């Protein structure tokens, strides 16, 4: 699994499932997700569940650090890394 592929799927999920309809956001792979309040501490759990369901990768809650979750890119890298470790 490529990090960018994962980031793309996450972008889709966040835009189409997580955010309320009226919230229109510019979202690229470097957008700071927390600073712009696109994600918050609880919404992250929904994203983690999405990752588990879609990529079959469990993100341990201990890994929910500001660095790992900074942007779609860093989240894609995290999931790809966990996937490699698991295999």
């Amino acid at each position, binding site marked *: 699994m490529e990090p960018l592929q994962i980031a793309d799927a996450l972008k889709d999920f966040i835009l189409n499932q997580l955010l309320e309809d009226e919230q229109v956001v510019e979202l690229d792979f470097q957008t700071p997700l927390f600073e712009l309040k696109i994600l918050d501490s609880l919404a992250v759990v929904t994203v983690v569940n999405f990752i588990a369901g879609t990529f079959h990768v469990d993100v341990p*809650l201990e890994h929910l650090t500001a660095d790992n979750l900074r942007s779609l890119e860093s989240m894609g890298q995290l999931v790809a890394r966990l996937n490699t470790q698991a295999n």
Partner: protein
Amino acid sequence: MTQANVDFDVGIIGGGPAGAALASYLAKEGISTVVFERELFPRPHVGESLVPSSTRVFKELGFLETMEEAKFPHKFGAVWTAADSNKLYSHDWKGLSASSYADVAFAERAQPGVDRDYTYHVDRGKFDLLLLQHAQKLGATVYEGVSVRHADFSNPDFVKVQFQLGKSEHDVKVKLIVDASGRRTILGKQLDWRIRDKVFDQYAIHTWFDGYDRTIAAKYENRTEYIYIHFLPITNSWIWQIPITDTITSVGVVTQKKHFAKTKESREAFFWEAISTRPELYEGLRASQQVRPFTDEGDYSYAMKQITGDRVVLIGDAARFVDPIFSTGVSIALNGARLSSRDIVRAVQTNNFKREAFANYENTIRRGTKNWYEFITVYYRLNVLFTAFVRDPNYRLDVLKLLQGDVYDEEAPPVLEKMKEIVTAVERDPNHIWHPFLGDLTANAFSPDF
């Protein structure tokens, strides 16, 4: 050993849910039992919401029908809410706001031995009276208006229970004395077993409102009969909202002792000030009618060095009081009665009232309260984790099992171990997104000293 000449086999101090349920269990087995209740029932009491593990006790005692006839509101679940972007969540991490809502319905998890997906909210005046009357119907002797002063253990063959009636002193001899005196902890104090809890130092102020519109707080119309826990933007503080009848709602504010003022007037002002941090609740309550004076509860959260001894057993709040956040008080009282009754019946049958005769009860109830305690500690230490677990399909049912009151069968429930692991990881990692939400419980909160 000669058989001591006693008045009753078992004496129980206190006719609340713990005492009345135990008296019922013992009377059912034909054991001569006396209950000493200080008050004349009915009387008001805090602790109005139950958890489903209570149902097993009601079934065993043949009391479920009475619960239904009394038309106590059915409690189908619990809801936790927090204000959007309040101070607690937004003050020091990049303006982060955690609008938080979580709910559970008991129906989501089938519970062995519990045949319904709801429990009850109760007017404790009415509930306690009905349960004590039930004990009496089953054959227990009940003395109301009798305040026990002392239990004399000086004779190894019996306990002399001393109390005052009018101006004269009286005593009754029993083979075993059970302290079910609630937070007064009569024997815990007398025997010097009581230890104050240094971690939880909470106070509560509460009253009843008539005509409060419960749909105000309900995100979903069909959940007005749930218990609501509303977080406040003050450390470790929250509001309970409990339906008592169709129109009456019990509302209480729980907070740390340090926030709690000395005078009654300023405590009432504090209640309204705390409520006003949730404007929709404030307006709803102000528009309704307060129908009881404010009552406050302090000096809670303690443990006992031991909860059984030779010829003595402590149950319910008299054995331990943790914190009311998960509505556990009545359930622990009822289950304490259930568990202790087995040991007590055997003790009476074998005429062995040594401490070790009550070891099963002591071990099981300690295991259960330890699990409760840790669960509550996680909740206060890292609230967002609790909400995350409730929302996470991997953990939801395991959390629900704890919320249903099934805490006695496992030494260390895996879900609790997982929560503790994550709390520790978050504590150690300032970079973790939940680090800023850590509550200010002390670090050793997981090892209570009892």
